[in-house]
């Protein structure tokens, strides 16, 4: 059972449908106490980084505890940004901080938000198994995470940013796998498989 955290940042219908197609058994626990049995955690989210304030406190503690025990965690879009120390979009709001660095606004000179299909430059990873270098994924965001050792895919929009990350049992994608066609469904399947092995 994978716990999809519903903290009010956008509609989760598409994420649920994506995991259904990927063979994942998804629940959205009503409170952090119900997280205990989860084999994996998904933090989705669209919109402003300040929305992650709803995760502060008990949710954050419960997620951090499970991640420390080795439970796989996948952040999608805003959820990926939350894995980092914070974002310039809401400087006072800390992220989970399991990945080093801060998220920054995409550089000026092009339309923002970055909306549409862009290319992933990938390296070998568990989450991106079977995803060839040069695959297109669907993005919609204005802030992005820095490129680091944790980056498993890099995308360029004015400057390069981390479009996928992976560090131990922590995974993240800036794009929307649930809207990225067969490649996106494959990534969700990979995460479901990771939760079964963990």
């Amino acid at each position: 059972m994978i716990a999809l955290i519903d903290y009010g940042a956008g509609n989760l219908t598409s994420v649920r449908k994506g995991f259904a197609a990927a063979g994942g058994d998804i629940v959205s626990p009503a409170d952090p106490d119900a997280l205990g049995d989860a084999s994996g955690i998904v933090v989705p989210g669209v919109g402003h980084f300040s929305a992650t304030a709803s995760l502060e406190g008990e949710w954050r503690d419960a997620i951090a505890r499970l991640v420390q025990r080795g439970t796989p965690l996948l952040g999608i879009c805003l959820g990926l940004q939350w894995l980092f120390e914070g974002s310039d979009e809401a400087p006072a709001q800390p992220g989970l901080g399991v990945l080093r660095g801060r998220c920054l606004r995409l550089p000026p000179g092009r339309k923002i938000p970055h909306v549409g299909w862009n290319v992933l430059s990938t390296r070998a990873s568990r989450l991106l198994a079977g995803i060839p270098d040069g695959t297109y994924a669907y993005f919609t965001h204005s802030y992005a995470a820095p490129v680091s050792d944790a980056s498993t895919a890099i995308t360029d929009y004015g400057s390069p940013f981390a479009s996928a990350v992976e560090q131990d049992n922590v995974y993240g994608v800036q794009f929307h796998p649930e809207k990225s066609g067969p490649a996106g469904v494959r990534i969700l399947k990979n995460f479901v498989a990771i939760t079964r092995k963990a």
Partner: protein
Amino acid sequence: MLAKRIIACLDVRDGCVVKGVNFEGLRQAGDPAALASRYNEEGIDELVILDVTATIEGRQALASTIRAVSSQLFIPLSVGGGIRTEADAAAAVEAGADKISLNSAPLEDPSLIERLAARYGSQAVVIAIDAKRSPDGFDVFARSGRAATGRNAVDWAREAESRGAGEILLTSIDRDGTRAGFDCELTAAVSRAVNIPVIASGGAGEFEHFYDVFTSGAADAALAASIFHYAEHAVSDLKTYLHDRGIPMRIAKC
């Protein structure tokens, strides 16, 4: 590089695609889910379901159409046509729409844009603008092009952006249905005035029209209906044509 998007529009009435479809091998030609699936296989980047129904029965059919399409296809899906209230938007989103396309309602009550952007995020709010040339520039029309609003298309696009719209779907009333090409001047005027993506619509008849609107029209995406309905492989052929002419296109790898 960010690809330019090719978007197919399905006009749906009472659960069926209204405009003619000539695909061989598509047994249920009027079934939106079957047509959507066909476009998806050909590499369409996004789908728009435009509801042209006025009845309550039709509305219920719309929700099941959205559900059927969104459970099978994992690409962005917009729904528009007759969405006037937050409740209409909620019904479409709960059925599986990723984006809501609004046309007439925000012209009467622009604060609807802010309320929907706050609830679902700007990425989910598309403002559809139907524009017609006039001596003063480009005028905005409401109610399927029947009602003049006294607004200028460039100004309305800027206002929509400032209120939280995530994209503009810009239709040329002059070109719609003519297959004479997109109105590149209109598209460029709006696209250069805002910092959000602009989807060009109205007038697609030949592959070259898409090239023109992505270059001189400065469009971020282009939408069409009948050009895709009437020819098999039109979507994949179009994307190959544009790719070969140097327009960044998503060509599926897996």
